[in-house]
Every structure is written in C-alpha cells, then in structure tokens.
C-alpha cells in the first residue's frame, strides 16, 4: 500500500508530543532549571594524543563563583565508562587519546564563571605521535593507544571456498569503498540536570537511549547502588544513536554529589562535535564473482573500521557491518574479515543503521558493477540471487522465515521510478534541455536486522495496569527522541483496548517508574511493545471486565473495554447504546479503580526474539527494504540532485502511519547527507568542521519533491512478532541507490562517499563538443 496521509485516512493521527514540539513549548531535559542550581563545564584535551605531565587546579578553585573542581582524583568508583568495555576515562590522568577527552570538570554559579575557571586550570602536556590512519595503526611500529594494542575487535566469517570459486566465475569485480564520518546532528546537544535528593539518592535528568544501562554505568562510577540512582531520560531532542553511550552524565553526577547542589550541564555545539560520537568511517574492499548466468558464486570482503579513541559499541557495529556485507543473497562461497581499529580521530560509535549503511553501500555497488560488466539489468541480477523464504540468515544462522526481500524487490521493479529507467533506456524520455544536466535512476535493497543480536542481553517486556486514579497506565523503559514511540504506544493501546487516548497514561524514560524492557535502539521498540501488549491487553481486559461484571451484575463475557470504561458488547461488536446521545460505558475506569481498591499492575517479561544458533551478533528478525531514486547530475558543477524517491519497506502491519512515513523520510534525508554532503573532517586528529556552518546537512531545498513509500504489511501466516522496527531502514539503502543512479546518468562508478563533485564535473566546452552541436 502506498502509505501517505490520504491512504492512512483516520489512522493518520497527530502525535501526542506534536503540538508542543511545533510550538516550542515542550520542555526538554536540557530546558530544566531549578533555583540554586550550579552550572557545570568540562575541560577537554587540547591535543588528540598526549601524555599529561601535570594538572593544576589551584587557580581555578579560587575563581569567583566556583563550587567544585574535579579531576581523576575525585572519582569514587570506576574511572571509566563504555557500554561494552569501560575503557573511556571519566577523567584522564596520564594520557589523552582524542580532543574530546575530559581532564577536569567545574561547577560554578554561572556558565561564564565556570568557563573562566576552566581557563585557569593548568595542564602540562607532552604531545605524542597522532594515530590517524587505521591501517597504519595496525602496523607493528605504530604508537599504541591502549594496553591491549590498537585493535578493538576482529570478525572472521567464511563458508565454502571463495578463493577456488573465483576461478569458476565468468565475471569478477573488485572494488574499494570509503564511507564518511557522519555526525548525528541532533538539534538538542547533550546535557541535563543532576539533582542530589534529600534522601541521599541522585536523580539524573539526561538523555539516553537506555536508562537502565546509564544507571548501571553511573553506579559503577559513583560507587553508589543502582537503586540509589534514578534516570529520567525522555523527551529527547534527537539522538539517532548518538546519545546511547554516556556523555555528560558522569560529570553532572559527580559535580552534583560533590557540591550537594543541583548541577546543570549543556554542551555547546562545539563541545558536542568535539566530544560526541560519530559514524564509523569504513574502508571496504570487496571481490565478488558470478557465473555466466548471473548467479553469484563468491564474495570476499575486508572491512577496516576507524573506531576512534574508545570502544563504546565499536565491536557490535563491526559485527553488524560483517553480517550486512553479505546481504539478502544466496552466495555459496563467502569470506568476510573485519577489523575495528583505535585511532585518535574522535570516537566512533552507535549511529542509525549501525554499520549496515557502510556495508550495504559497498555490497550493492558491487552488484551494480557486476551487472554492468555482464550487460545485465542490475535489478534482475538481484532477483536471480535473492534469498528465499526459509533460507538461513547471512551468517548461516536460523532466522524467522521472511518473504520481505522478494516483496520489496517486486515493489521496486513495478515502481514508477524504475519504469522510468526502462523508458530512459529505450530513449522514450525527453532529456533535460541543458546538455550538462544528466538524469539517471538507480536502486538498492537489503534486509536489516533488528534487536541486539545473538549473545547480547536484550530484555523485552512492559507493564500495563489501571492506576488508582482510573487511568490505563502503560510503562516501558523506552525514550521518546522523536521516533514517535509515544504515538505508537498510544495507537496500539487505543486500538487494542478500544479506549480513548485520554483514558491513557503512558510512562516512559524513568527507571523509577518503568520496568526494564531494554533499550530504545536497534529498531526493537515497536516489536517489544507489540509483543508485550499482545500479552498484557487480554489479561488486563479480563480483569477489568471481571470487576465490571461484579459491579454491573452482567456476565463478564458480555463486556469489553472501550472509551471511558467497560461497555456492554453486542454480538456484532460495538456498543449497546440505550440512547445514542447519552451512550456511556457501564462503568468508568475511575469507578473500576475505586471498585478494585488498589492499583492494578501487570507485567510482561521476555527476551527479544533471537536466533537459536550461536552466531554472535547474528539476527533473527529482519526488515527488508529497497529504494529507487531518480537523480540529476549537473556536469557544470558535479552537483547531484535527488529528484524523486521510492521506498519499499516490508515491516509487517503499519502501527502508526504518520510515524512510519516520518521515519522513512527522516532516515532517507540522513542517508542523502551521508551520500552527498556529510563528513566530519579531521586533520591530524583535530576535527575541522565544528558547527553547522561548515558541517552541512541536507536542508529542505535539497529534499526530493517526490517521495513515495510502499508499506508492505503482509507477513507469513502465524508470524508471532507483528510489526517490525523501521527506525533505521530508511537510512540504509538510499546511498547506493543514489550512486547507482549517478552511474546510470553519467557512467561514473562512485567508490567514496560523500560523492565528490570534483569527480563528476566536466569542462563545459568538452561537454558541448561531445554532446551537442554548435549553438
């Protein structure tokens, strides 16, 4: 179904947080202030790699308004953080490894006083050689950044005998692909408010995508029991993975505990760019071969990821890149070797697509090059090699049967944009009037894993009940960072319970008030919410109808939940209305709560669906997606404009049509930036694009006028998991579709993103001489 406002009809719902966001009245956590609070600032390293010889804070301590100056000496617990391996120091004591490394933190009465005091801290550095090239970092004589060396993680997957199989190939293509260090570019920079409570507890109001994980990490740093820490982590002004890891929380928490006063920290954009995570730049070397009929035989991949100074999720990102470098294709002989390497280039980490974006760009480009070499239609080549419903996953693991790849393939094959390509190829479409404007169409596809993958704890669940004040209360440990989880929960609940949105209270992003049902990452939340509510809704309905049955003297089987309370149902469904105008529930939720005498709370608890096979990081659920785009290349400048795009997404039933469209549109804009503009430039370990005046992301004028989404809702019969996550799939196939379209337009194969205009532009007189007559 083409999904848009019209086709969604009544299901096109204004998101609950929409009006406050549009009018600007919504208060983010970084908007919070309390009387008497202090302001925190963090001193970060001047050098990308240096030894710290001495740190002197004496002058800073004497500065006006200063309440505390903290360094590595003031960390009561573990001086380190990192979701997997806590190797990033809260405060550096001996060595700094990137320009975002923290050395000290100050709390003062005003931001200006804190900044002034920062300037008084004396740090003596001895600069060390800077490691900027991940391949050189692996050489023996390279400076070593960590006790264990410069290699964070290695992957190695193989099946068959690729080396031999290449000998049987009629066509072999070899390519090297480079992807950029993309920045999340959220509107709200990292920050929050940290409040020491009278009870001795600490409340942290700061964005994260996994509140319980922050609680665990802060507990380690502060040497404080987890129960003594409350994390309030929603709403968030954008994250895209960038706020999944700790950022300012250790400093805010330590300063608040040291001073006994609330402390606010809010990164400037410059601080955010310097200290924050980025997408892993990767170099992917691929050799792919097929037989004369277009059947893929062998595929060899080498991945080198620049993970920057610290681990965070660099390992899992490489696992994901490894898995997704094989794609939804049947390839008998495969070898993938990946390595993630420490450098002094900032810190790379979690980012929408999670390593898939890089691999999919390279793999899909390889298939296009093979098709071109063999003179085949690139989309037909994919069909020949497409996996089937019950095939194992990319790493040979058992996966849930899925027809998604075939569904999205067919959708794009029949899309207006792809048909236009065929017309172009037959010369049936008029070319633009200017000889330097060239148009082309390209497409790409993938299946993208959801959930954290085999071997990583991935708890699911949720809570649903009736509160003492008569609200249907649902609690999940998710965060709302714009992806629309609150709207999705509201729609699921109103549709499953038949209630009104005003009957609901949705509680998220608060470790004191929600059960632990995992992170808001990895395209997992929608599936977790659906699985939890599928379990919880019948249970709560039964309890509510039973209480109503006692109160109303009617059999519970004749009752059902509805707007405002429990209603009498008729055989045909709907509500028995004594009088249409005064139709009302038999008993309201408030009356039910009073009758129950206490709050009712039901919990669901399960693990996110995972493959039974011990393939670390391997996924069980996938969302298939494909995109076709039409581009125009201006050869005068090399600029690429995206004119039209079509996305096919096979993610099961559409829960929230507006949110679905928003996710695919937003993801695709991000992918367009990845393909055409974005790269945080570093020279000698120092970032050069420090703000949005040099780091450019696509603006509204860059977005294609045409945007079409085919939401494929059909799942195999008895599929138990319902709607799949779509938070990432909008961002993973657009880049290779764009480069394919550029190739179709001008015949140039792109190996490096963002696309260099200098590679595409031509010399006008040459263009005129070749392509057109005299004026």
């Amino acid at each position, binding site marked *: 179904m083409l999904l848009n406002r019209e086709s969604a009809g009544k299901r096109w719902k204004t998101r609950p947080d929409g009006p406050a966001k549009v009018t600007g009245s919504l208060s983010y956590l970084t908007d919070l202030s309390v009387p008497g609070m202090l302001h925190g600032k963090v001193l970060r390293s001047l050098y990308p790699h240096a030894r710290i010889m001495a740190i002197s804070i004496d002058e800073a301590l004497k500065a006006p308004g200063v309440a505390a100056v903290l360094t590595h000496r003031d960390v009561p617990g573990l001086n380190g953080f990192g979701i997997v391996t806590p190797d990033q120091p809260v405060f550096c004591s001996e060595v700094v490894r990137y320009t975002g490394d923290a050395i000290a933190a100050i709390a003062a009465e005003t931001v200006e006083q804190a900044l002034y005091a920062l300037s008084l801290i004396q740090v003596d550095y001895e600069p060390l050689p800077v490691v900027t090239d991940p391949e050189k970092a692996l050489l023996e004589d390279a400076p070593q950044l960590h006790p264990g060396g410069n290699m964070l993680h290695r992957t190695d997957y193989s099946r068959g005998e690729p080396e031999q199989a290449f000998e049987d190939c009629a066509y072999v293509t070899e390519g090297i692909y480079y992807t950029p260090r993309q920045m999340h570019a959220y509107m709200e920079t990292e920050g929050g408010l940290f409040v020491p409570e009278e009870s001795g507890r600490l409340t942290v109001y700061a964005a994260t995508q996994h509140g319980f994980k922050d609680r665990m990490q802060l507990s380690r740093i502060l040497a404080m029991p987890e129960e003594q820490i409350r994390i309030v982590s929603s709403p968030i002004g954008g994250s895209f993975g960038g706020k999944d890891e700790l950022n300012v929380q250790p400093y805010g928490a330590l300063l608040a505990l040291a001073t006994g006063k609330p402390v606010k920290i809010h990164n400037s954009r410059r601080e955010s760019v310097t200290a924050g995570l980025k997408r892993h730049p990767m170099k992917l070397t691929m050799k792919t071969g097929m037989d004369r009929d277009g059947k893929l035989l062998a595929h060899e991949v080498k991945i080198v990821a620049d993970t920057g100074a610290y681990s965070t999720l660099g390992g899992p990102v490489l696992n994901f890149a490894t898995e997704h470098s094989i794609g939804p294709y049947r390839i008998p002989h495969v070898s993938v070797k990946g390595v993630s390497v420490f450098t002094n280039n900032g810190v790379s980490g979690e980012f929408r697509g999670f390593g898939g974006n890089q691999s999919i760009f390279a793999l899909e480009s390889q298939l296009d090059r093979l098709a071109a070499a063999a003179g085949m239609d690139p989309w037909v080549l994919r069909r020949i090699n497409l996996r089937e419903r019950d095939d194992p996953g990319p790493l040979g693991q058992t996966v849930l049967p899925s027809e998604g790849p075939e569904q999205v393939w067919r959708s794009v094959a029949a899309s207006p944009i792809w048909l236009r390509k065929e017309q172009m190829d037959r010369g049936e479409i008029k070319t633009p009037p200017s000889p330097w404007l060239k148009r082309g169409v390209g497409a790409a596809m993938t299946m993208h894993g959801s959930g954290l993958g085999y071997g990583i704890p991935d708890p699911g669940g949720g809570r649903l009940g009736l509160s003492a004040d008569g609200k249907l209360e649902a609690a999940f440990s998710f965060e709302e960072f714009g992806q629309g989880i609150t709207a999705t929960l509201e729609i699921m609940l109103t549709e499953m319970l038949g209630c009104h949105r005003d009957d609901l209270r949705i509680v998220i992003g608060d470790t004191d008030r929600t059960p632990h049902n995992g992170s808001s990452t990895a395209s997992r939340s929608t599936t977790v919410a659906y699985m939890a509510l599928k379990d919880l809704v019948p249970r709560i309905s039964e309890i509510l109808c039973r209480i109503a049955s006692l109160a109303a003297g009617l059999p519970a089987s004749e009752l059902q939940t509805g707007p405002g309370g429990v209603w009498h149902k008729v055989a045909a469904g709907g509500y028995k209305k004594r009088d249409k105008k005064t139709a009302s529930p038999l008993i309201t939720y408030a009356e039910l709560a009073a009758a129950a005498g206490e709050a009712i709370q039901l919990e669901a608890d399960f693990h996110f669906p995972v493959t039974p096979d011990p393939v670390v990081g391997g996924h069980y659920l996938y969302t298939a997606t494909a995109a076709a785009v039409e581009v125009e290349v201006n050869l005068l400048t090399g600029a690429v404009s995206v004119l039209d795009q079509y996305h096919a997404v096979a993610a099961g039933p559409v829960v929230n049509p507006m949110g679905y469209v928003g996710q695919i549109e937003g993801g695709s804009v991000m992918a367009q930036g990845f393909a055409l503009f974005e790269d945080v430039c570093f020279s000698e370990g120092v970032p050069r694009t420090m703000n949005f005046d040099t780091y450019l992301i696509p603006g*509204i004028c860059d977005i294609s006028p045409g945007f079409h989404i085919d939401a494929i809702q059909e799942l195999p019969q008895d599929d138990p998991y319902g709607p799949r996550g779509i938070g990432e799939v909008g961002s993973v196939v657009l880049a290779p579709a764009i480069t394919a379209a550029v190739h179709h337009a001008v015949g140039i194969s792109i190996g490096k993103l963002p696309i260099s205009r200098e590679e595409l532009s031509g010399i006008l007189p040459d263009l005129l001489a070749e392509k057109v007559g005299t004026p």
Partner: protein
Amino acid sequence: MAVHYGKRTVKVAEPSTLYEAWRLKQEGGAGAVYVAGGTLLRTQWENGAATAPSLIIGLDGVMEYRSIVLNANKGAIVIGALTSLEEIRRSPVVAAHVPILIKAVSAIAAPSIRRLATLGGNIASLSGDAVTALLVLDAELTLFRGGPGLEKVLLKDWLEGGECVRGSGALVLEVVIPIVQDIPAFSAIPASQGADDIGAGSDSANGMASAVQDEFRSFGFFEKLGRREAFTPSVVTVAAMGRLGEKGSFAKVKMTAGGGAALPHRLYEAERFLNGRRVGPSSLAELHTLIMEGCASAGDLFASTDYRKEVAANLLTARLWELLKG
C-alpha cells in the same frame, strides 16, 4: 552593556552618530570593531577565525544609512550600507533596475540572517557574495574617514587597491549603483572594438530581420554554487553584464568571479576577448580557458582551487552559451 565571547567579556558601544562611531574606533584601535548585522563576525569570533574584539561598536543606531533611494537625476540607486539584505531582496526599486543584486542577496544565508546582515557588512567582509554582483554593476562606495567630507571610490578600486586604498577604520556608508539603460549597440560599441568581427547577419532568432545594424540587448546574470541548495557558504559566485547583438556579438561585457574566501574580481582578459567578438564553439573553449586563467580562487577543505576555477568558467560559459542559443 557587555556580552561574553568564550572567556572574554566584550564591551558594546551603541553610538548614534557617525562621528561618535569614528571616535570610538580611533580610541579603541585594533581591539575595537565596527559591527552592523554581526552575522559573519560572530561566526568568525566563535570559530577563532578572528580574535574576538574588546569593544563592539554597534552601528545599528546610525539610522540614516538604512535606505534604498532611486536617484533619477544621477541615474543611480543609492543603498545605505546599513540596509539589510532582506530589505534589498524585497525592494521593488532594486528589482526593477538591478535584478542581479536581488538574485545575489537572495542566495545569501537564510531569511533570519538576511534580516540582520547588511549590505555594508557584506562589502566590508570583502568576500561577500553580493560583491560579485556589485562589481559587474560598477558600484561606487561612499566612504567616511573622519574628515568633514565624504570620499567616493569605485568598488573595483577599493577591492583591487588593497589596504593602501581601504586603509583602516574607513566606514562604508553608501553603495551607488549606476542604472544601465538599453541603448542600441551601434552607438554603444566604440569603433575600435572589432566591428569587423561582426559578420553580415542571418535572420535573428525571433524572426526580425536586421540587415545592416545589429540590435543589441543587455543581459546580466548572477550564479552561485554553494555546498547545498540553500543556506550555504558559496563555493563559486559569478556574475556578468553586457550586451549581446542579435548576430551573436558581445559588447560592454563585464564578468566577475568570487566565492569562498576569494576576493571577487573582474575577469579582464576574458572580457577583452569577448567584447566585439562573434562567438562560436571554438571561441567558447578559448573563453573558458581565459576565465580559468583569470580566476583567483582559494581552495579549502571542501573544494580545491582548480575545481572552483573550472566551475566559475563552466557557469559563465554555460550562461553565455544559453544566451547565444536564445
């Protein structure tokens, strides 16, 4: 009043007269900086591209230089230096007489910034995108140097003359843009300029036969390539004005290129090549080479010098090719 820039506290003075502003600058020396809209200076201070000043001399109070006046007697439009880019963009007078200036200011930054940024500031930055357009318009600046009188200098001379012409502390007060009227070309082309290059004519594009005299029409355009479609610093800006005869000969052509950190400049060799010549495919190629040779671009992280030159030449040549094609 005071504002903070990083660790520095910066004083802000708000003079209401030109003389007061001048005096503050003389007293403050290098640490005192005139600020009109402040949109560019602010980013330079924040990025460390310029040292944050100790004194900001806010010019907003000097209101008399915030206007757009059509001076029919002088055949010129006079724009006060404190006029915002947005006021220029919306001005019917500017639209009627110098549309390429509208095109240039419309391509600068975003609406909120155009409401603060001034034409004077764009010129004082030396590399402003409007400068590329003003250069082909033969704009003249009115300067104030503290003396009793005002000084007039051609924008071209002001840019080309370097610090010895611009001096320190001079305030740009007005931009005077002459209005060009459409004049038949035979009176407009000096006899010395290759009249014999203009061959005997075929029928003109619009079907009106012109046997002996060539009918000239004026043209002008401005093009900007940014790193994205809107709200972007320029990579390349080009502008041209001149006259094109119905038989394909050019006259009175002026061309400029700028963009990025480059000072916008005239492309004299290319202009000389074009003026009085009938242009065919081979001469377009020659013109392209001359433009590239005449272009003084400054490469940076995002675009190399050679690329900028090539794009400048492409944009100019392409627009001329389109003009010739009719």
